[in-house]
C-alpha cells in the first residue's frame, strides 16, 4: 500500500524490487494566463501539504471518509503540477512504473471515464521515468491545459463538463509496476552493462575522453486552465509487461484552502503569486527537452472543454483576474536533454 512521507505519496513494490520506490508530489505553481497563447513551463512554488483523510473523519463529509486516501488544500483558481520521482536500486537505474491520473474520475490523458487496469489504445497512462511530470489535461498533441482548482458544483470542472455531474472531484491515482519477469531482465541487462563499463574504465586511457552527451468542507474539482507546451510520452514497454494485479491506488480529495485550518488545525497556505507578479520579478520560465521521444495525441474527449476563464466570463460577464496574456522572456531549458531539473522557486524569490 502507498504511504505518505514528507507530503509525498510513496509507492513501493518490494515483492518485485526491494530497493525501489516511486513518489508523487503535488507542486504549487503559477496559474498561466488562460488565452489562445501556449505558455512554457512555470516553476514549482513548493509542495502542497498532504494529510491522511482518516485523521480528520469528524471534520470531513461522509463521502470523503468513504473514499479514504488523502486530503490537500488548494485556493480557488490555484494551479498544480504533479511531479514524478523515481528511485531505483542504483542512481542510474530507475524502476519503471505506469501511472494513471484522473481528475473527477476523468482520465487526464484520454478524457475517458476512469477504468481500472491500463488501456493501450489509446494509451491512458504515463510511464515514469520517461514522463517527469504532468501539468494538466492532455488536450492536443504536445499541449496540455493546466490543472486549476475550482469549487465543485459550479460547472467549471472537466468532470462536470464531460459527465454533467459534480460527483467525485479531486484526483485519482493508480500506479502499476513492471512484472517481475520483465524487471529482472532489465536488471540483468543493467548489471551486464555495469560490468562492461567497469572493464572499460579499468583502462585509464579512456578516462579523459569519456563524457556523456546527455545533459540530462468545500470539495474542489480540477478545471482546465491555460495552455502549456507539454508532451505526453508513449509507453516504451508493452502493455502486457505491466503488472496490473500489483497496482496501488489513492483518492486525493481537494479541499478549499480556506477550510484547511478548520479541518487540520494547520495554517492555510499563502496565496500564490500571479504569473504577472512572478514575471515582473524577472523570474524564469522553463522549457522541457526530452530525449527525442514522439508524443501521444491529446484526448479526443477534451476537444470541447471550456477553460476556466471562458466559463467565468460567460457566467459573470467579467474577466477572470490574472487571465491577461503576459510576455515572458526566453525560457530556461530543463530535462534529460539539457541536464537540469525543473527548479522550485522559494517564496523569497518573488516577495
Amino acid at each position, binding site marked *: 500500500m502507498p504511504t505518505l512521507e514528507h507530503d509525498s505519496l510513496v509507492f513501493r513494490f518490494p515483492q518485485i524490487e526491494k530497493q525501489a520506490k516511486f513518489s508523487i508530489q503535488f507542486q504549487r505553481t503559477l496559474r498561466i494566463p488562460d488565452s489562445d497563447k501556449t505558455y512554457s513551463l512555470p516553476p514549482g512554488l513548493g509542495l502542497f501539504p498532504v494529510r491522511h483523510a482518516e485523521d480528520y473523519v469528524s471534520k470531513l463529509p461522509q463521502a470523503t471518509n468513504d473514499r479514504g*486516501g488523502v486530503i490537500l488544500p488548494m485556493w480557488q483558481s490555484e494551479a498544480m503540477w504533479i511531479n514524478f520521482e523515481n528511485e531505483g536500486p542504483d542512481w542510474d537505474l530507475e524502476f519503471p512504473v505506469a501511472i494513471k491520473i484522473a481528475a473527477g474520475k476523468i482520465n487526464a490523458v484520454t478524457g475517458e471515464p476512469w477504468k481500472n487496469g491500463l488501456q493501450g489504445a489509446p494509451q491512458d497512462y504515463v510511464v515514469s521515468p520517461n514522463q517527469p511530470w504532468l501539468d494538466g489535461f492532455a488536450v492536443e498533441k504536445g499541449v496540455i491545459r493546466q490543472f486549476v482548482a475550482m469549487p465543485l458544483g459550479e460547472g467549471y470542472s472537466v468532470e462536470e463538463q464531460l459527465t454533467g455531474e459534480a460527483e467525485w472531484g479531486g484526483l485519482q491515482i493508480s500506479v502499476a509496476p513492471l512484472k517481475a519477469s520483465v524487471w529482472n531482465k532489465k536488471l540483468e541487462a543493467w548489471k551486464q552493462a555495469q560490468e562492461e563499463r567497469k572493464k572499460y574504465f579499468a583502462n585509464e586511457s579512456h578516462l579523459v575522453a569519456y563524457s556523456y552527451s546527455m545533459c540530462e468542507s468545500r470539495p474542489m474539482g480540477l478545471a482546465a486552465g491555460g495552455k502549456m507546451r507539454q508532451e505526453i510520452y508513449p509507453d516504451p514497454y508493452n502493455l502486457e509487461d505491466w503488472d496490473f494485479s500489483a497496482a496501488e491506488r489513492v483518492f486525493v480529495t481537494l479541499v478549499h484552502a480556506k477550510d484547511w485550518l478548520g479541518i487540520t488545525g494547520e495554517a492555510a497556505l499563502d496565496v500564490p503569486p500571479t504569473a504577472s507578479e512572478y514575471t515582473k520579478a524577472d523570474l524564469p520560465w522553463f522549457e522541457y527537452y526530452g530525449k527525442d521521444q514522439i508524443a501521444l495525441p491529446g484526448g479526443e474527449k477534451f476537444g470541447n472543454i471550456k477553460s476556466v476563464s471562458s466559463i467565468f466570463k460567460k457566467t459573470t460577464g467579467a474577466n477572470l483576474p490574472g487571465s491577461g496574456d503576459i510576455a515572458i522572456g526566453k525560457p530556461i531549458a530543463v530535462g534529460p536533454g539539457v541536464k537540469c531539473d525543473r527548479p522550485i522557486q522559494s517564496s523569497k524569490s518573488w516577495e
Partner: protein
Amino acid sequence: MHHFEDEASSIGDHLRKLREKRAAQDRSFSLRQVAARCEVTAAYLSRVERNEVAPPGEETLVKLAGELGEDPDVLLAMAGKISADLRAIILARPQLFADLIRSIKSMPDHAVLRIVRDVKDGEW
C-alpha cells in the same frame, strides 16, 4: 534502507562519493556547480567533503540531499542532526516516541516498514 553500521565513512566522504559518482557522467556535478546550486561557496563545500569543518546546517544538508539524490534524513543523521519536523514530533510526545524507538530498535527493516501507516483506500 541506509544502515549506518555498514558505513565506515564520514559525512564528508559520503557527500564526496555521491557527488563524484554523478560527476563521472555529468559535468554539472562539479564541486563548483553543486556548491553554487546549494548556495554555498566551492571552498566551503570542498572543506566539508574533506571533513575539515563541522557538517553544514539543516538547510544546506537538505539542499545537498536534493542535489545528490540522497534522503535528507540520512544526511542529517550522518551529521548527528535531526530534522526540525522530527524534533517537533518527538518533543510533542517525548516519552511515547522514546519508548517506541527503543522498542523497535532491533526489528528488521521489513518489520519496521509494516508499522509505517499505509494510505487507506476506500470506495470510489
